[in-house]
């Protein structure tokens, strides 16, 4: 079948402001938006800018705004989207070219929550023990691929770029609830700041957008309650 893609283009070297451009591509129902973007770049317009790598939803390169929702282009099938599809760059991060946004602010927020295991005890000779239940406690948030679909779908983030955002909170959650970690308090302290969890207004766009099916809002709420129980 033929599909039409309406893509928001912008090349700061040439364009004063973004504009829309339409492309027509031959595609099958089981094809993904990424396949169509490739067709365009390879055979129609070599200047189209977008990121991608794994092409099966595991590397987090190609989150973009497709038909009004954040998704991974490699996981968005025409069978589910129809034959007229609009594609825009993620919101809330500076656009560098076409569908490519500057990810630095996003990773800076990630780094701000100490996203690594902190345990100052001498490690045992073998593994640290952890029961399957303790392991299950934070399983959901270990799935994050840092694609930014959540953070850039959050209206609270759109208006407040200082908000650490759901992805950073998800990655903090992953350690706060890991029985082997000892720095939960430090992270909770960071997340209790003005730009931390309280900027979340339970809008759920993040959860709806997450391509890994992470219960993002649930994780945020668990962090909120942990802060509350620690302080009240």
């Amino acid at each position: 079948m033929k599909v039409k893609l309406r893509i928001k283009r912008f090349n700061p070297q040439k364009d004063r402001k973004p504009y829309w451009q339409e492309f027509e591509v031959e595609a099958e129902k089981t094809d993904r938006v990424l396949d169509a973007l490739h067709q365009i770049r390879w055979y129609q317009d070599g200047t189209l800018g977008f990121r991608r790598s794994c092409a099966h939803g595991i590397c987090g390169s190609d989150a973009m705004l497709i038909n009004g929702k954040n998704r991974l282009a490699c996981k968005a099938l025409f069978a589910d989207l129809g034959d007229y599809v609009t594609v825009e760059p993620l919101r809330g991060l500076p656009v560098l070219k076409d569908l490519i946004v500057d990810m630095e602010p996003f990773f800076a927020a990630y780094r701000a929550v100490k996203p690594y295991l902190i345990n100052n005890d001498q490690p045992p000779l073998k593994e640290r023990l952890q029961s399957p239940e303790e392991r299950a406690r934070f399983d959901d948030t270990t799935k994050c691929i840092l694609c930014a679909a959540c953070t850039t779908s959050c209206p609270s983030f759109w208006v407040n770029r200082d908000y650490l955002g759901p992805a950073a909170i998800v990655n903090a959650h992953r350690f706060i609830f890991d029985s082997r970690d000892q720095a939960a308090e430090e992270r909770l302290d960071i997340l209790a700041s003005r730009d931390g969890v309280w900027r979340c207004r339970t809008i759920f766009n993040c959860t709806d957008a997450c391509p890994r099916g992470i219960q993002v809002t649930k994780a945020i709420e668990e962090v909120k309650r942990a802060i509350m129980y620690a302080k009240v």
Partner: protein
Amino acid sequence: MATNGAGRPRPRGSGFELYSWLFMRISGVLMLIFLLGHLYIMHIINSVEVVNYNFVAARWGTPLWRTWDLILLLLAALHGSNGLRILIDDYIHSHGWRVVALAVLYVLAIGFILGGSLVLFTFQPVAS
């Protein structure tokens, strides 16, 4: 772009936003009783047709209703103005305008709380 671990000053919690968040929820729950009760009595069982000076005067004759309205006033004014503070924080980014907006909000809020309480405490019905 070259990056190392740095890039963003580490935020620290002050605790205020937590209490603001908690307050919004607690006041919300309390208002379910006080505000919905108020609405029900004033606007549904009765109506603006009958609400006049005498009606209010009669209602404020009992300490129960005076306390009720005082609590409601405090809850609603604080909840509402804190809500507006959050909106200002979200939408007004220029430092100057934010200060102005917050100043106006706080003056209004304090003014209304003080004024409203004043009436509630000092109101003496006069015959009309």
